[in-house]
């Protein structure tokens, strides 16, 4: 049953990706991307990654969709049709070849199958983390002071520095967004008086103040 759900959900993801490539209305595309994220979160639950599913549903389906919607508000709602239809033939050939090569590598008999408990990925670190958490929790008497969730304990201890780096990345991105969009005064100073920017300047600076 779970296998069938897995098959169906992943097939849905493929269909959604195809629709996102086809549709030109950017609002529809954004909504489809939100659905795509939510479906990914569901797949994560099936694959036992409950914490990742949580984050994907909140951040991927929630915040990302809001970000895209606010960007659409400040830019265009509709993607223009391609002038030259043949131009996308090259990328198509490239991705088909690359995809075929990747599929060919998965056919190698050494490729661990899905769910294989003997896969090299489960080798050294993961059993250690599991054993550590079991030791803390006390195996059969979980107490309120210890955290039974292995992902949480690993994230806070072994990968604590990594989480610090993550915060630095978010901070840098926030500063970058503020520099790019913040403050109309800065923007007016930067804008040089070329004719084509004059024409779009009045409308966009008004919208920029609203953001």
């Amino acid at each position: 049953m779970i296998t069938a759900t897995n098959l169906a959900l992943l097939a849905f993801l493929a269909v959604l990706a195809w629709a996102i490539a086809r549709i030109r209305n950017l609002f529809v595309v954004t909504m489809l991307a939100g659905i795509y994220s939510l479906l990914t979160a569901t797949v994560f639950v099936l694959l036992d990654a409950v914490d990742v599913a949580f984050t994907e549903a909140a951040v991927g389906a929630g915040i990302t969709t809001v970000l895209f919607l606010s960007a659409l508000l400040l830019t265009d709602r509709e993607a223009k049709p391609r002038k030259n239809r043949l131009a996308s033939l090259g990328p198509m050939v490239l991705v088909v070849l690359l995809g075929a090569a990747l599929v060919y590598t998965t056919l190698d008999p050494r490729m661990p199958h899905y769910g294989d408990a003997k896969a090299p990925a489960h080798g050294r670190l993961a059993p250690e983390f599991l054993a550590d958490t079991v030791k803390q929790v006390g195996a059969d008497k979980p107490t309120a002071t210890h955290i039974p969730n292995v992902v949480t304990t690993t994230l806070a201890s072994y990968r604590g520095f990594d989480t610090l780096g993550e915060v630095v990345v978010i901070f840098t991105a926030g500063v970058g967004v503020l520099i790019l969009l913040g403050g109309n005064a800065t923007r007016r100073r930067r804008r040089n008086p070329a004719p084509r920017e004059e024409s779009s300047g009045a409308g966009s600076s008004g919208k920029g103040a609203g953001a």
Partner: protein
Amino acid sequence: MWESFLGLYNYWIVILLMMAGFYIVMSRHNLVKKLIGLNIFQSSVFLFYISVGKVADGTAPIIEKGIFSYSNPLPHVLILTAIVVGVATTSLGLALVVRLKEAYGTIEEDEINEMDAAD
């Protein structure tokens, strides 16, 4: 045959999604659409990591009485970080798109290139 199809199906879908994202990034001129393509590419990598971490008959890695088989928690930890970093980069990309719209009046890459060539 059926067993190896089920064993490799997740990887094939991951490859398909990754190539779909890559194709959108390369072939579409609209910058917002390019960013969505990047997001699809990115989430295919997430799916790959989580698929690798799955252990058959395992459960979510939360220690509980009477359960002895858990899925690998390490990919989950890595991908948790990656999702949040992905949103940070997406927001920065969207900010760039908004600035480009203000400067050029369009978010189509080919039109921007034409304007740059005309200058």
